[in-house]
């Protein structure tokens, strides 16, 4: 029997969380090192899964299936395809860098890392699940620790409000999708939650048209889709650094991914019917998010709204329902994940030292924090889609995909957002890292430690690596997209 890579990946963080909970609260060092070791272990395995995924064979690989509840057709069924393999890798990367960035958490680190890792297990579980029931199971596991992480360790001014808002939004979304999924389960007549079987269930077009929208939007709430994006910037801002990284970097992908897996792949006719609406909503996301981001003065809100804008591109790419758009969206999920994790890491570093995120009050940070500055510049280049960086590899195909639909004008409108994005990210880089350093900060900004540096370099390496060598990611996503297109009837 093959080594059960995926279940080990999914349950490693959970096991680590349980081990950490057994420690005494005072053993802060042991807690951190255990967390880092578990993170590295999961990252290594997920990297291995990614590298050894056979793109030419495509399809679901590393499949494991254990009967969990045969009565209702529930099984613990893991497997990755070209779409989810990069996301599993992304989760590993964000997990490790998140631990590195949170090294300085002093308030109840035991609970902090335990909750963070329970969340990570949930995220891995969703990306790897091929069983609809288990997908929900892991999805909820990924949602509730968020509440505690934000409410306890978040920014004191808004954390209670933001945490509750986020949790309720996401819970509403997931339960609406859940009802949709249950209806699918009974309508299919196969009495199985196995998504591979449900893919071939041949639901009637009317059924698909009725249920696509609730299912897709229910998940897409977590992907930050307009008009249900409101929780996301507030949540990002209130969350502690590592949680923002997880949240924007991975969790929002969870929503987009589940919307794709359950919405588009299981209800393709519904997807075709509603695609124009989704594209319209996504367009609002892209443009509106970019404009709002450009008028924010809080460093973290800028990044928060930029996430809304970029996740709009993902939804847009999916909704084109053609190869280009989907490939772009797949790469964008990964690229935006590392980019935004990097952004939030840098924001966290600056805030921890300057104790303010108000952009007009900051300046000249490049001198004490050179690597953070370089990181922010690289991230900015990615976010404006500069060739040579992963953002280009993602955004260019998305726009090409939009261009080849009958809503081609959306590509033009959407492209405006790129200009706006360039404007606001460059403004932030200029003001925060260059410009004149306010006097009160002179000699009061300690340098970042080696862990922070390692995290930044790791994240940058992915963005530049994929930018320069798209072949490191595109073929994976392409193999996944082929399967989705086949379900859509070769559209």
């Amino acid at each position: 029997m093959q080594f059960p890579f995926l279940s080990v990946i999914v349950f490693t963080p959970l096991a680590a969380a349980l081990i950490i909970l057994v420690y005494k609260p005072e053993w802060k060092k042991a807690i951190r090192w255990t967390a880092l070791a578990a993170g590295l272990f999961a990252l290594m395995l997920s990297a291995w899964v990614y590298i050894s995924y056979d793109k030419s064979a495509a399809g679901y690989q590393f499949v494991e299936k254990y009967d969990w509840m045969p009565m209702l057709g529930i099984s613990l069924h893991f497997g990755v395809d070209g779409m989810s393999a990069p996301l599993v890798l992304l989760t590993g990367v964000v997990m490790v860098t998140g631990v590195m960035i949170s090294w300085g958490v002093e308030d109840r680190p035991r609970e902090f890392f335990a909750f963070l890792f329970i969340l990570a297990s949930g995220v891995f579980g969703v990306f790897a699940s091929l069983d609809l029931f288990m997908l929900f199971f892991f999805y909820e596991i990924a949602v509730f620790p968020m509440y505690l992480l934000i409410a306890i360790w978040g920014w004191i001014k808004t954390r209670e409000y933001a945490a509750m808002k986020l949790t309720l939004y996401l819970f509403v979304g997931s339960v609406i999708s859940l009802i949709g999924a249950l209806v699918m389960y009974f309508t299919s007549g196969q009495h199985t939650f196995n998504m591979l079987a449900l893919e071939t269930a041949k639901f009637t077009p009317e059924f698909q048209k009725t249920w696509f929208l609730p299912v897709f939007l229910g998940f897409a709430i977590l992907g930050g889709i307009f008009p249900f994006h409101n929780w996301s910037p507030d949540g990002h801002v209130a969350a502690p650094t590592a949680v923002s990284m997880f949240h924007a970097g991975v969790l929002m992908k969870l929503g987009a991914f589940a919307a794709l897996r359950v919405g588009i792949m299981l209800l393709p006719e519904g997807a075709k019917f509603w695609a124009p609406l989704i594209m319209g909503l996504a367009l609002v996301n892209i443009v509106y998010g970019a404009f709002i981001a450009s008028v924010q003065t809080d460093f973290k809100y800028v990044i928060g709204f930029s996430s809304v804008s970029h996740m709009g591109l993902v939804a847009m790419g999916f909704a084109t329902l053609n190869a280009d758009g989907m490939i772009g969206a797949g790469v964008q999920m990964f690229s935006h994940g590392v980019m935004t994790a990097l952004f939030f890491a840098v924001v966290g570093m600056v805030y921890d030292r300057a104790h303010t995120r108000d952009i007009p009050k900051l300046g000249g940070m490049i001198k004490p924090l050179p690597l953070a500055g370089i990181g922010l510049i690289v991230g900015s280049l990615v976010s404006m889609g500069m060739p040579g960086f992963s953002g280009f590899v993602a955004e260019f195909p998305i726009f090409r995909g939009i261009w080849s639909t009958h809503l081609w004008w959306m590509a033009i409108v959407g492209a405006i957002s790129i200009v706006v994005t360039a404007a606001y990210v460059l403004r932030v880089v200029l003001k925060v890292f260059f410009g004149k350093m306010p006097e009160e900060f002179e000699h009061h900004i300690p340098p970042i430690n080696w862990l922070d540096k390692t995290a930044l370099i790791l994240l940058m390496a992915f963005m530049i690596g994929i930018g320069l060598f798209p072949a490191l990611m595109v073929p994976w996503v392409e193999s996944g997209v082929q399967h989705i297109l086949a379900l859509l009837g070769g559209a």
Partner: protein
Amino acid sequence: MIVLLPILPEILLLALGVLILILDPFLKKDEARRPFLGWFTAVGLLAALTVSLLLARPADDPAFAFGGMVRFDWLGFVFKMFFLFAAAVTALFFMDEEKLNRRAEAYLLLVAAALGMCLMASAADLVMLYLAIETTSIPLYILAGFLRQDDKSTEAGFKYLLFGALTSAVLLYGFSLIYGLTGKTGLYELGVYFNNFNLIAMGITFLVLAGLAFKVSLFPFHFWAPDVYEGAPTPVAGFLSTVSKAAGFAVLARLFAVVFVWVSDDWSLILAILATLTMTVGNLIALAQKNIKRLLAYSSIAHAGYALVGVVAFYGLGLPSVVFYLIAYVLTNLLAFGIVAVVGRVTGSDEFPAYYGLSRRSAGLGLAALVAFLSLSGMPPFAGFVAKVFVFVAAVESGWVWLAIVGVLNSIVGLYYYLNVLKYMYLYRMENQDEDQHPVPVSRPVAVALIVLVAGILLLGTLFGPWFGLATYAAAALF
């Protein structure tokens, strides 16, 4: 001997009660050895459970015993085993309550109530059923008012008694009408008289339903719950809100399966409306509560509503999901009340401010509370999640999609106030931020009980397959 097997758990309970009484005078002199009573009760209940599990398992084919008074089937058996387990846990909680733990009467009443519930779960005759309900209720009235020096407790006991007596009378009136009409008292002979709608059937159903709705606190018979839970000693409130409710549902399920067939076949809309109102009223009023016991009271009303959703769905996955839901709910709510009991003992208050900074005062208790409240709100990997999902699965299966949607919307309201409680525990601080100076010690019996409950909730929430299989098996034995 074989004749007695169907009521072996009840016989063992009776023996246990007698032993408690015999033991009491021997321990009277020696204050230090009084806690022995609690351990004795808990271990005795578990021993009764083990022995019954080994010797008194029913056959696959249900059989009647004692002239049709009780039915020896898996539904009754599964419920009985959980009642014994829950009573054992409650006995451990009793040990921590100063005014209960030295009194043999308290343990005796607990055992007597458990005995009544066991009979409720397997009663197959109207006379037996009524006796069982009264055997359960009377010890519970006394237990609710056990703290005679405490006004709230006496009020709780008295209120519970008045409401209980009234609804018992209504129930009995319904039963007597059934007998007058049919001349029969065996539940399994009555179905033929109630298999289609007519006014008399409806009237009788409503009378009986009212009596049972009080037991399980369905809208509009839920008013007593918050006051009684608030006043009663906390472990008793926990027992009332879980086991007594589960016993009520066991009776309800049996009645709808074999007697009031007209409702379960065609008129489940009545129950669906009742479920909707119960969930909504419970959840909405819970939002405004400032006292944790009252909050849990309203939340337990809402949970009765969720369980009723499964009763509405009835056939197919409906009844198994109700059984599973009740098992999950009993474990979860016992855990919640156990935590409330500990905090109440240490701080002397059940208001929310008593919970500020709990996770810093006792990290273990904080984590247990996390498990309890997230399970109540229906989050995985805890029992509450699968239980809720199965109920909704059952609803969707039998075409009650709107009811499932009402249910999930309600669980969102629930999530809000459960998270608020967690917020007080994890986020808020004590007035002087000196949590280190105010630890919350947990005594050994309570710690054992809490750990067992947490483990049970996790077990039910992850390895749910076999448990649901058991629930299905039990429900199938009903017909």
